[in-house]
C-alpha cells in the first residue's frame, strides 16, 4: 500500500472517530470562541478594539485551540494504547504522521471557518476584503503550526507531564508562524490594506511549511522508535 493511501486511511479513521463523538470539534470550537471573548476584554476599550487586535486575537485563538486539539487527539490514542497498534501496522511511519496531520488540519480548518466570522462580527474586521489571501494565510499558518505540533504531540505521548510540555515546546518553535500570520492578517485588516506585505508574509509561511514539514517527516521515524 502506498504511503499516501495509508495516510488517507489513517486520516479517515481519525475523522470517523471524531464524527461519531464530536468531542474534539465541539470542545475545541467552544474553547476558541471563549479565547476570543477573553481577549476582547483585554483589547477593547470604549467600545472599540485597538488597532491590529483582530488579527492578533484570531491567531492566538488558532494557536491555543490548535494546542488543545493536538493534545486531545493523541491522548485519545494513548488511552487504549492504540498508538502502538498504529505504529505496529504495516504502514510507513511517515504515513502515520501524514494521516494524523491531515486529520488535525481538517479539524482546525473547521474551527477557523467558525472563528473568522466571529472575529469579523465582534471586531468589525474586514474579513471579506481579500478572502482568498486570508484563507491562504490561515491555511499555510495552520499547516506550519500543526506540522510541528503533530510531531511534538506524537512524541510526547510517552513522556511525563505531556499536557504542559506541549505548549512549552510548541509556542517558541512556532514563533515565526505566529509573527507571519499576525502581520500578514494585520496587513489585510488595516485601515489602509497592504496586500504586497500580506503576500510577502504568505511566502514566508510557505517556506516555513516546506522546511519544517520536511524536517518533521524526517524526524518522525527516529523519534517514534521505542
Amino acid at each position: 500500500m502506498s504511503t499516501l493511501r495509508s495516510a488517507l486511511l489513517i486520516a479517515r479513521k481519525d475523522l470517523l472517530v471524531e464524527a461519531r463523538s464530536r468531542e474534539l470539534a465541539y470542545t475545541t470550537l467552544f474553547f476558541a470562541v471563549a479565547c476570543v471573548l477573553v481577549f476582547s476584554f483585554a483589547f477593547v476599550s470604549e467600545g472599540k478594539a485597538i488597532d491590529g487586535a483582530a488579527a492578533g486575537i484570531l491567531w492566538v485563538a488558532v494557536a491555543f485551540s490548535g494546542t488543545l486539539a493536538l493534545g486531545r487527539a493523541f491522548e485519545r490514542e494513548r488511552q487504549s494504547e492504540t498508538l502502538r497498534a498504529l505504529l505496529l501496522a504495516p504502514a510507513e511511519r511517515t504515513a502515520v504522521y501524514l494521516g494524523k496531520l491531515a486529520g488535525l488540519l481538517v479539524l482546525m480548518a473547521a474551527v477557523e471557518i467558525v472563528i473568522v466570522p466571529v472575529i469579523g462580527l465582534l471586531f468589525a474586521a474586514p474579513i471579506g476584503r481579500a478572502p482568498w489571501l486570508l484563507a491562504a494565510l490561515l491555511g499555510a499558518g495552520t499547516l506550519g503550526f500543526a506540522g510541528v505540533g503533530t510531531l511534538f504531540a506524537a512524541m510526547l505521548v510517552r513522556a511525563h507531564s505531556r499536557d504542559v510540555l506541549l505548549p512549552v515546546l510548541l509556542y517558541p518553535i512556532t514563533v515565526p508562524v505566529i509573527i507571519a500570520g499576525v502581520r500578514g492578517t494585520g496587513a489585510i485588516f488595516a485601515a489602509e490594506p497592504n496586500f504586497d506585505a500580506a503576500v510577502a508574509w504568505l511566502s514566508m509561511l510557505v517556506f516555513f511549511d516546506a522546511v519544517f514539514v520536511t524536517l518533521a517527516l524526517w524526524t518522525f521515524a527516529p523519534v517514534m522508535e521505542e
Partner: protein
Amino acid sequence: MRVANRLVPLLLVVAALMYLRAPFMIHAAPLESVMGVVQKIFYFHVPSAMMTFLAAFVCGIASATYLWNRNKFADHVAVSAAELAVVFGLIVLVTGPLWARKAWGVWWQWDVRLTMTLVMWMIFVAYLLLRRFGGPGSEILAAAVGVFGTALVPFVYVSVNYWRTIHPNTNVLRTLQPEMAEPFRWAILAFLMFFTALLIVRIRLEASRAVLEEAYALLED
C-alpha cells in the same frame, strides 16, 4: 576525550588570567563618542551572545547525530551545550537591557536580535524542561527539539528582521577602531576558553551520570 579532560585546568587558568586582565584593557580602550562608558558592556555582552549561538549550534549538530545514530556521546554533548546556551543566553539577556536602558531609554525593544535571542533562549529552556520532567526516553524527544530549535534560527531572524529592527548590526564589529577591537578580541578568546572548559567538564559529568544510572539499573535487576 582524555586529552580534552587534561586540557581543562589549563583552559581554566588561562581563561581566569585573561578575565583578570580584561577589565584593564577595557578601561584603557577609548570611550565611545555617543554612548560613553555604557558602551563598555559590549565587551562582555557580544562575546556571551556569540557563545550562546555557538552552544545552540553545537547542540543542534549533536542532537541530529544522536537522533539518527543513537550515539550516547552526542547526547551528552547536546545536553551540555543546551545548558551552556541557557547560561550564556541569560548573561546576554541581562547585560542587554542594562545597556539598552541607557542607550535607547527602555529596558526592552521588540527588535530582531533581542527577540531572536529570547526565542532561542526559551527553546533551550524548554529543551531542559523536557529532559528534566519528560521522564524516561525524553532524551530522544529532546534531540528533536534541539534539531528544530537550530533549524529555526534563520526563520526567527528573517521574520523579526522584516517586522522591526533598531539593534546595532554586525557591521559595527568590522568597523571597530583598533583600540576597541583589541580588548574585544581578547574578551572573545577568554569567553571561548571558559566556554570550552565548561563544555568539557559538563560532558564528563553527564557521562559519569549515565554510567551511574546504568549501574543503578543493573543493581535493581
